[in-house]
């Protein structure tokens, strides 16, 4: 160790720390450099709010995809957030710690399953079920919401558990000593004290849902239109980039980078919200 010395180690860690940061900066610069000129040239209003996407004719309106991304993400929240938060409350308040210690890593394992596997299950199992019992093409907004809802469960559950456990024991003991039942303690004391952490977990899950690409391409059908029902096929912003990038040249390619800029901005906003919610929690303590 003397070979490198205290200062040397410090520099090495500095370099590693900055490599992550510089990767982020490079990516941001690259997307902005490729995408922003297009947005300026085509007009931000026409780009964001027009609903015809026809690259061959030079029409690049991403409104249906913005709407689709929002619906898919909200739908995934509707599926994933209640399930995840309820699961976290159950695991941290209603079962012995040993059970939680076994179950939590198993749920976190869910995060390690590649998204293409989720997509495949969606195509082979979920889509035919939706087609048979609910109608429509099966590959739909609903299928996307359910698959993404399941995919965000590990994020929501494990961060929620952490923040529920961070609530000081004395809060719970105080509440129980005043004669409250376990459920009353959970929803009136623990849940409120852990609220900002739970919100942060949901927002992080949301970030995962909006950025997910492979599973959405496979199960959502990718039709470019504003959905009228949950059974309609939709194309998210991420799917648009991944689907067409391999063939795109010229203006079409720039339009896809511009789609990336829109996505980047949306995810930045979401992550900032998550960080703000986390800070609030820390400040409270």
């Amino acid at each position, binding site marked *: 160790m003397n070979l490198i010395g205290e200062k040397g180690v410090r520099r090495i860690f500095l370099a590693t720390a900055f490599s992550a940061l510089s990767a982020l900066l490079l990516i941001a610069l690259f997307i902005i450099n490729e995408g922003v000129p297009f947005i300026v040239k085509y007009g931000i209003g026409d780009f964001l709010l027009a609903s015809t996407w026809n690259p061959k004719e030079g029409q690049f309106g991403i409104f249906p995809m913005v709407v689709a991304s929002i619906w898919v993400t909200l739908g995934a929240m509707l599926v994933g957030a209640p399930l995840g938060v309820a699961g976290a409350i159950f695991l941290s308040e209603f079962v012995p710690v040993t059970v939680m210690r076994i179950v939590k890593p198993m749920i976190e394992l869910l995060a390690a399953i590649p998204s293409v596997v989720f997509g495949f299950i969606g195509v082979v199992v979920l889509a035919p079920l939706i087609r048979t019992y609910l109608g429509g093409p099966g590959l739909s907004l609903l299928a996307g919401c359910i698959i993404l809802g399941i995919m965000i469960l590990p994020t929501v559950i494990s961060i929620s558990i952490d923040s529920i456990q961070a609530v000081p024991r004395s809060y719970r003991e105080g509440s129980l000593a005043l004669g409250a039942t376990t459920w009353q303690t959970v929803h009136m004391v623990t849940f409120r004290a852990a609220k900002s952490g739970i919100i942060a977990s949901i927002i992080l899950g949301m970030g995962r849902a909006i950025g997910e690409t492979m599973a959405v391409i496979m199960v959502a059908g990718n039709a470019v239109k504003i959905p009228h029902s949950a059974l309609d096929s939709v194309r998210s912003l991420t799917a648009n980039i991944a689907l067409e990038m391999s*063939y795109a*040249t010229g203006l079409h390619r720039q339009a896809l980078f511009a789609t990336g800029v829109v996505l980047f901005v949306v995810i930045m906003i979401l992550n900032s919200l998550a960080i703000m919610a986390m800070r609030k929690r820390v400040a409270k303590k």
Partner: protein
Amino acid sequence: MILLLAAFVGGCGRSKSSITLAGSTAFQPFAEKLADQYMLNHPSASISVQGGGSAVGVQSAISGAAQIGMADLVTLPPEARVLTSTVVAQDGIAIVVHPSNRVTDLTKQQVSGIFNGTIRNWKDAGGSNAPITVVSREAGSGTRSSFEEILGNITLTKDALIQDSNGTIRETVANDPNAIGYLSHALLSDRIIAIRIDHVECSTENVVAGKYILVRPIYLLVKGMPEGETKSFIDFILSSEGQKMIEQNGLIRAR
């Protein structure tokens, strides 16, 4: 990226005569096999094959990033005028449905109607009462632009599902009894059936005889006149040995 790669390949292969092919993903696997065989016959040659799509094939042949561009388009874009094009193979585009579908024959007008979104139920095309699920390729795909161009005036219905490869089109159609899609003739399987168009079946014989309308040529594009190793490789593809390899792997010979 491609430029860099080409420069890299070019830099490495100075001692050997090296050729780069880029473009059509439909012809890429065939080009790779042909290149392997050619390099066996000519140990001094070095050929690398890259994908990227037909548009990339045209662009890189013009820019010189690749000596040979591959494109599977019915009509080459105007900027390809400066290139010498050679048809090396043909590929039929099969219109496919689920095996349970009663419809086995459609007219050209019906196919256009279905993909335009004016025919939305199978009963209007001679089938049972069920909504039609149209499955198409993404914008920019050579298969899609050839398909739309041959049938003419197709503005794809906004309800169409979009899949990004021949393989996923096949999976989607094989899983959905109401679906209709199109894919390369080479990729037909027994889980989907090809529909006859105006009573003509999508078969190698009908494509060669010029009876089946949905056929696209596969072009090799070269800047200027092909010479040296490039010419010799194209000649090999057009030779009876090369054409036989193309045929064995599911495409249709050029002549």
